[in-house]
């Protein structure tokens, strides 16, 4: 029974495709692709609507206020109202803008964000597009975001836009390195760039109790943290929303956008966040695997969504907690701490692998990470830098 619920969507798709039995092969192929795309868009656009209102409500709770509560029950219809507002708002294009580039930027950024969703396994047998180098695809396509942001900045012909775009590109470039390098340990250990294989490699339980997720190994935990932080930066969210910091440069590269184009940017940011969280889930949190053997009766895609939701909650939580960083602090952090640590994770994963992947490997890789972490914090003088601030007043 639980198996059929687990595979419900897969069966439904096969049933739909069975209508096309007898038509040429490419028709079935195209139909299958279209179904996948449709499902992806339906699920994630709904999720986007839901998260946008939930984020506002959660943030409101954290800031001791109510948040949206007027439209529909508990304000749940708020996104619909927002959507209608965005759609009927006037679309303003600056006179001196580069109109083609200005128009293409939001299209590209949204397309890229949605494309990256395609390679993530959402449940057992539920990967929309299986590519041999799925992880590489994710990053290859994701790297076009920078171009899109630059197009937005350039096309608007506005100083704030340009500055915001440059900041965005600088930070995205810097954090793309730790992001990708922190994925490498997993790829190395699994020996594959295919997300399905990576999820499969995390099946099973040590001592029948602790799931074999990579986040439970020292290198995996370190890489997971690095990946999540870098992912946070890549999606330009607080505390790393330097490129669109409204108190400094209006809204960065989105300054000259309004109406539906602005909504597209907004959507792309959220979908990018979903994609990074989904990849983090796949890589480190065991994908759609259940955290305990007993809980395997719950369908796999539910587990995936639960983990995704947990990560998203953490993102919102961080946004509600931390203030915005300065750009130079961010850059220093990326190059002086994140990057060496990411390389250390590779070494630690290799140590873990060659020390037979057991408890011994666990301890040794912990030692590697702890040593490098300590050395880095001594070298970077974190004790002094993160001490309580001393205020000096004019005397």
């Amino acid at each position, binding site marked *: 029974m639980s198996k059929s619920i687990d595979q419900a969507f897969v069966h439904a798709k096969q049933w739909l495709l069975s209508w096309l039995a007898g038509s040429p092969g490419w028709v079935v192929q195209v139909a299958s692709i279209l179904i996948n795309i449709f499902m992806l868009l339906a699920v994630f656009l709904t999720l986007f609507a839901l998260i946008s209102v939930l984020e506002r409500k959660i943030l409101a709770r954290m800031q001791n206020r109510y948040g949206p509560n007027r439209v529909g029950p508990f304000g749940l219809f708020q996104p619909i109202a927002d959507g209608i507002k965005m759609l009927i708002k006037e679309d303003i294009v600056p006179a001196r803008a*580069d109109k*083609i*580039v200005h128009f*293409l930027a939001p299209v590209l950024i949204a397309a890229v964000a949605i494309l990256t969703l395609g390679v993530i396994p959402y449940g057992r047998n539920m990967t929309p597009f299986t*590519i*041999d*180098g799925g992880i*590489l*695809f994710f*990053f*290859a*396509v994701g*790297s*076009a975001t*920078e*171009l899109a942001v*630059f*197009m937005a900045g*350039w096309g608007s012909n506005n100083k704030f836009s*340009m500055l915001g775009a*440059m900041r965005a*590109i600088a930070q995205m*470039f810097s954090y*793309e390195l730790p992001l990708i390098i922190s994925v490498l340990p997993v790829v190395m250990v699994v*020996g*594959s*760039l295919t997300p399905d294989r990576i999820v499969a490699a995390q099946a099973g339980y040590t001592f029948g109790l602790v799931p074999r997720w990579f986040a439970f190994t020292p290198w995996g935990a370190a890489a997971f943290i690095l990946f999540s932080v870098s992912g946070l930066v890549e999606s330009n969210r607080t505390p790393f929303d330097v490129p669109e910091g409204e108190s400094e440069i209006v809204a960065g590269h989105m300054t000259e956008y309004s109406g539906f184009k602005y909504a597209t940017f907004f959507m792309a940011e959220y979908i990018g966040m979903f994609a990074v969280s989904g990849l983090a889930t796949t890589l480190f949190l065991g994908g759609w695997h259940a955290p305990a053997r007993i809980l395997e009766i719950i369908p796999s895609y539910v587990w995936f969504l639960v983990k995704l939701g947990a990560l998203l909650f953490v993102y919102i939580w961080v946004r509600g907690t931390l203030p915005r960083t300065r750009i130079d602090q961010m850059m220093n952090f990326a190059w002086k701490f994140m990057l060496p640590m990411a390389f250390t994770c590779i070494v630690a994963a290799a140590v873990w692998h060659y020390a037979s992947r057991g408890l011994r490997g666990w301890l040794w890789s912990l030692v590697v990470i702890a040593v490098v972490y300590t050395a880095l914090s001594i070298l970077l003088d974190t004790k002094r830098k993160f001490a309580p601030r001393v205020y000096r007043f004019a005397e």
Partner: protein
Amino acid sequence: MSSAAFVIISIFTLAAALAAATLRKLMHAALSFAVALVGIAAFFFLLGAEFVGLALVFIYIGAVAVLIVFTILLTRRHAGKDRGFNWSGVAIAVAVFGGLTWSIVKTQSLSIVAPHVPALTVKRIGQALMTSYVWPLQCVGLLLTAALIGALVLVMEEKR
């Protein structure tokens, strides 16, 4: 490997490439170049070299194209429109194209259909890179480091 896909991709690629070579606004040309690269990556997919296609997208669109637009931004004084157009260059390019096409068409041994080859997995590429091609790989790593440092030195502001 279907003809339809080939025709679509080649028209797309060549159109984008032509745009990249002839558009008057530099920024538009750079973006067209990125589009042309997507087309070439599609060619690679079509030919079964998925990894190379992905690497091409990753490196060219993620890095080289952004570098180019950044350079355009930094040397903006003339970035608006590129007026001059050297017609002798066009003639040479057309002649080269003619010569190449003529010699390709003339060589009969080239009109072959692709044989069936096993899919080229990333794993196999990785193994090849780590065994037979490990020296070139290291050399490329060294080259990239040198290029990185060289580029930095070139653009560093001279301290006065």
